[in-house]
């Protein structure tokens, strides 16, 4: 359930975010801003789920009803050089439910940044190394899942991305894989249960995670359209106990399918994303939408 939010913060929000004309770019594509250009984006996202996986049990919860996470993210991507880009993103996130009495949470979540380098370019084939990091920027409560706006952990990500583009048609295929280190979180509580054992400390380790994705699309000068499949999985963690709430230490996993598109004829453009979780573990089966306004600045 949480992962939804994290994605909003680090993965997806970035993913969701950018794109400038044919130039607009994100941490999961092979597109670069040229030197001395910046793309700024304001992106609005909404993610809902009615059912979730409690461990492997798919269920609904009448005391939650429909869970909604909304976000407004400010993002900027700039060309340090034609082959090195810096991307930063800051989302403001709110949560609420349609039923029950859990208080929705809101606040600035995690500031994230990505450095993207086009390491190899050979005809239509390119390889990219991408490193990212994120840090919570407000003192939100991470342990009140599924209402928390984030996981509260600092993260560092390393991503390798390969892309092949057929220039005449604009057809491209992208594959990438990521390892994300996630740190420990200071809880308000000084004890918690992990995998059936009590830990008498306020420090909880958020599991590290890997993700992988395959994208297929068309990229032209003024537009981009893409379908994708993503897989996210923690590398450790426990499961939600029967009828209990999720927790930071849970092994969250999800497979997501979706579409991404962008239209930017000139400096001003729009982008959009829609995705759906097809299977998961310890997470909500969310349907997510994003709509962004893009603006390119040439310095």
């Amino acid at each position, binding site marked *: 359930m949480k992962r939804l939010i994290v994605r909003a913060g680090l993965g997806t929000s970035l993913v969701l975010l950018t794109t400038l004309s044919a130039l607009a770019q994100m941490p999961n594509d092979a597109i670069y801003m040229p030197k001395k250009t910046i793309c700024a984006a304001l992106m609005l996202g909404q993610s809902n789920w009615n059912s979730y996986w409690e461990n492997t049990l798919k269920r609904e919860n*009448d005391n939650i009803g429909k869970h909604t996470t909304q976000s407004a993210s400010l993002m900027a991507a700039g060309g340090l050089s034609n082959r090195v880009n810096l991307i930063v993103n800051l989302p403001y996130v709110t949560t609420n439910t349609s039923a029950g*009495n859990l208080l929705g949470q809101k606040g600035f979540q995690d500031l994230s940044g990505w450095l993207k*380098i086009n390491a190899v370019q050979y005809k239509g084939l390119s390889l990219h190394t991408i*490193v990212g990091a994120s840090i919570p920027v407000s003192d939100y409560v991470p342990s009140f899942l599924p209402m928390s706006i984030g996981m509260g952990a*600092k993260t*560092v990500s390393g991503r390798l991305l390969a892309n092949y583009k057929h220039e005449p048609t604009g057809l491209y295929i992208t594959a990438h894989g990521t390892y994300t280190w996630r740190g420990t979180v200071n809880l308000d509580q000084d004890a918690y*249960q992990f995998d059936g054992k009590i830990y008498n400390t306020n420090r909880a380790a958020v599991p*590290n995670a890997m993700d992988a994705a395959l994208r297929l699309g068309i990229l032209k000068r003024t537009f981009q359209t893409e379908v994708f499949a993503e897989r996210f999985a923690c590398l450790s963690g426990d499961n939600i106990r029967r*009828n209990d709430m999720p927790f930071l230490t849970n092994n969250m996993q999800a497979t997501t399918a979706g579409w991404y598109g962008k239209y930017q004829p000139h400096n001003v453009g729009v982008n959009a994303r829609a995705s759906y979780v097809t299977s998961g573990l310890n997470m909500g089966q969310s349907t997510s939408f994003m709509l962004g306004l893009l603006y390119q600045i040439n310095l």
Partner: protein
Amino acid sequence: MKNSYKILIVSALSLTFWACDKTVDEPQRVGYTPVSVDEKAGTWKTYVLPSPADVTVAVPASTASAEYVAEVTDLKSRSANLSLDQQEAVVFWGVGAVYRWNEIARELAARYNVPPASTADGKYPVPDAANPTADPKFPFANPPYTARALAYLSVAQYDALVATWSYKYKFNRPAPSKVDVTVRVSLPVSALPSYPSEDVVVAAASATVLKAMFPGEVTFIDAKVAEHRNSRLWAGMNVESDLAAGASLGSQVAVKVMARAKTDGMSASNNQTVTAALIQAAQSRGQTNVWTSQEIPARPPMLPNYGAAINWNFDAATKVKLRPNPAPLPGSDQFNKELAELQSMQKNQTREQARIANYWSDGPGSYTPPGHWNRAAANAAHEAKFSEVRMARTLALVSTAIHDAGVCCWETKFYYYTPRPQQYGVKTSIGLPNFPSYTSGHSTFSAAAATALGYVFPDKADTFTAQAKEASESRVYGMIHFRSDCDAGLVCGKNIGGYAVARGQADGSGL
């Protein structure tokens, strides 16, 4: 590009270290020689066991006997060349028998502290003691259940240790390492006679109680008992006959203590047929707006008849006297003022208020407020280097006060049957328990525990009182209680704790 690669690699590495420090260190405790061995503890007043003479303990072989010498020889072989696992077990259990078994009980409570899920037809199945590992697991170790489990655990440990001390000083058999200095010991050795082994007494008594309270955990508990018992051999602390006598004594006492549990009223605590009359009675006293479950589907209230259970430190007539005056009625100025406080908090809850609400929430998946205060008591007693019997006395005083608080609080809750703030549209940042509002369980548990703890640790009394106040207010900050619920609960809890203090002052310990 080359430079940017270098920068990239260096920054990636440093970022990785910055983010992925995954060490989660728990405070580690170590064993100690107690400040006093409390050699007169065999005369202290017990709770259930009429007297140490009500258990049988075999007369031990003398230290000069061939039988004993053979046991020491066996001990020497067992305590030499320990594996890493054995060394870890020695250190773990060396922290203290009562301390560790209280910790184990809290962990079991946390594992079982989840309310049953509703079924497709909108019903809530009741956990079945005869089928404890099925869904829903038995028990639902909610705060009343856990309060009682910890009280019986501590009482069994205490009564058994009082009897143990009586026999230790009757037989006066010294520790094996004092008989034969070549016995290698891994833990501090005090002047305490070693027959019967106090460690195995605690293990056996605890196991008997916990198997009854958590019948799905027999295998887990047996493994803990075996490791605890063996650790005494690995540590060179006890010979086999010390252990055998301890196991027998601990079991005998715990069986007697659990006989009380069978008739203490708990078996009728979830009698849902009483609620209609309780609601009617509350309404006839003017409480026209009564509590209703806010869960979907509506869940029957948690243990509506728990308040009818018997108390440890006072009788049923006293329980009625301890019940506070009615809560402000909905619609009254005081009620509206308290509701407005919560409505305002919902909009403007500070991070500090949220922190306090979270710190004390001890909700599902936790060891509950009774577990929270047991932990505080065990830690304080460990830091004060109490003997096993004095630590058991401390935990018995605290946990019987907590259990009494739970019973009184539940009696009050279902006597008045008052609504929760959520019935007036208030949301919560911690989750809403499923039973009437007045008085606050956290407040009552906490004040009772803090009062008992303040008596045992007078230099920390102010700290415990402040913590109880904070625990109480945390329920306002979490927006699930009106302030009157908390204030009245604190007063009741303090009065209830006073009965535990009076018992402690009269138990012959002179403490």
